[in-house]
């Protein structure tokens, strides 16, 4: 294990520790949270549900937006069909009522799914701040393994508790493979 260039005076985005296994990372994330850090993030090659608890990740807004989107699609679908058949172009088809609700269900359903699904995908992408053409974490050379096989934890310099030396010492106590500074 080595600590690279801690005396570097460049503005820092944060300090990044690399872990060998998912279990080590989850334990490290839990201790980081318990130590009172707020602005930190883990980077993993696949979703790890244990981190939701270890890092207090409980963002349910994607579900909420999807529900709202689905309801808009639902109302929009039924409203469109009813408006067209009752107001815009009322035609008497075999004496059926202008608002023949059962026959508008397929359109209502399809638009519910369409708007709900698009909302789910778009709200996930937007709330994740994507697309993001540049991000400081990619300045760490070994970070390319985050999408392949390695696990990273980064404590950001914006955190009120962040201190270049003390935080590096704290990360070392978590038993990482390596610690690197993340240039901004």
């Amino acid at each position: 294990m080595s600590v690279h260039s801690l005396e570097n005076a460049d503005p820092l985005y944060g300090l990044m520790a690399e872990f060998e296994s998912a279990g080590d990372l989850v334990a490290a994330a839990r201790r980081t949270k318990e130590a009172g850090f707020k602005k930190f993030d883990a980077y993993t090659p696949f979703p790890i549900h244990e981190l939701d608890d270890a890092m207090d990740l409980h963002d349910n807004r994607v579900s909420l937006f999807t529900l709202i989107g689905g309801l808009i699609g639902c109302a929009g679908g039924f409203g469109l069909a009813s408006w067209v058949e009752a107001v815009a172009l009322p035609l008497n088809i075999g004496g059926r009522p202008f608002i023949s609700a059962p026959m508008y269900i397929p359109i209502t359903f399809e638009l519910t799914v369409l708007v709900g699904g698009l909302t789910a995908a778009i709200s996930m992408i937007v709330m994740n701040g994507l697309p993001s053409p540049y991000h400081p974490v990619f300045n760490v050379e070994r970070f390319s393994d985050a999408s392949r096989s390695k696990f990273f934890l980064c404590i950001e310099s914006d955190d009120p508790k962040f201190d270049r030396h003390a935080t590096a010492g704290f990360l070392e106590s978590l038993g990482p493979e390596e610690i690197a500074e993340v240039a901004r």
Partner: protein
Amino acid sequence: MAQPVELPSKIEIGPVIDEGHSLASVSDKIAGIVLKRKITIGWIFGFLIAFGFMQLLMGAATWLIVKGVGIWGINIPIGWGFAIVNFVWWIGIGHAGTLISAILLLLNQSWRNAINRFAEAMTIFAVLCAGMFPVLHTGRPWLAYWLLPYPNTMWLWPQFRSPLVWDVFAVSTYLTISAVFWYVGLIPDFATLRDSATQRWKQVIYGFLSLGWRSSARHWQRYEKAALLLAGLSTPLVVSVHTVVSFDFAVAMIPGWHTTIFPPYFVAGAIYSGFAMVLTLMIPVRKFFGLEDIITLRNLNNMAKVTLATGLIVGYGYMFEAFFGYYSADIYEKFMIWNRMTGPYAPFYYVLILCNVITPQFLWSKRIRTNPLVLWCISIVVNIGMWLERFVIVITSLHRDFLPSSWGMYWPTIWDWAVYLGTLGFFMTCIFLFVRALPMITIFELRMLLPGGRVKEPVAR
């Protein structure tokens, strides 16, 4: 109590993914197919054949636009010829992809992780093929936008009580949501390709497609939520699409179409044909790209079981179609089923029964389910059988309706065949490009199947 019976000739099926793989090795293997593997002669050969067939589609569509739908074999009473047969067939094939990606995700079936990307790709390409047929069948494809509700100077609107309009909404929603789900699934894998690529242009293209994904835990949490929601929305969607397609028939008055069994029977048939197509494509792909350790015999075995189960439902459908005809006490219904079995198109009916009811019975045998070559042959037979099913439903019902004065015959012309084979070429062209340009297996979901993908927290120090 009875002793546990030792089964004779026990066949070992093995795990979902072969042992010996690590997080890094699966990533490198699948990313390597896209990034490092040279383009082989075999790929070029196959691609050129597929691309050649696609030119048939181009030619036939051009001639159709020049001359009109009269170049096809359709007539009155058989206004729905190959175009609708192929439309229903292609849409059905797509259903396996969504079933694998959405329903099996909700059911927590981890064996799906190795095949879902490929199956979803197949779905999108199949739906694209399907969508061409109704548009071409209108005879004026350049006016296809008339199907959509939009304010126009004549203040004309689509008839929302018509199953044909439901179809427009169902198929376009299906295509859109499948494509979105597929892309969302690809984002983390694009990031893997970006980080593994060594050439600048590949890094730029995959980086652009990955939207700058950085594998953050905070992102993964929302990502998983969105993926689950998309799966939850796609599950009823996939069932609804073929149901709506079956309404095109069931809402009509024609004997043989006007039955309540159509929606479930169409959905089962769709999944049946879709799984057969997944097998048709996956078995050669796993061989040519050396993926036997990831798409294991367990995957093939499970897919064969789904094929068998849905095949039995389809067989049940045939049985009850015949029974309803008899039990309805309606002379037109009775005649329809009698004509189907003994009329001019009877050979098609019997080949259909042979392909769809008799052939899948072989899948009861584990030895056959784990023999890729035999399984591949069965899957081809099932594909043909399902195509014949749609032919029988569309053509035999239309050609003998209520009045003998309005009876007719339908035979496809060379242009019907050209469009059909052309869409097969288009489909295969897409598949050939897909396996070269995109990771054909969802890498990040595969990682979760590995020992390194499980979380064992060390005891607190």
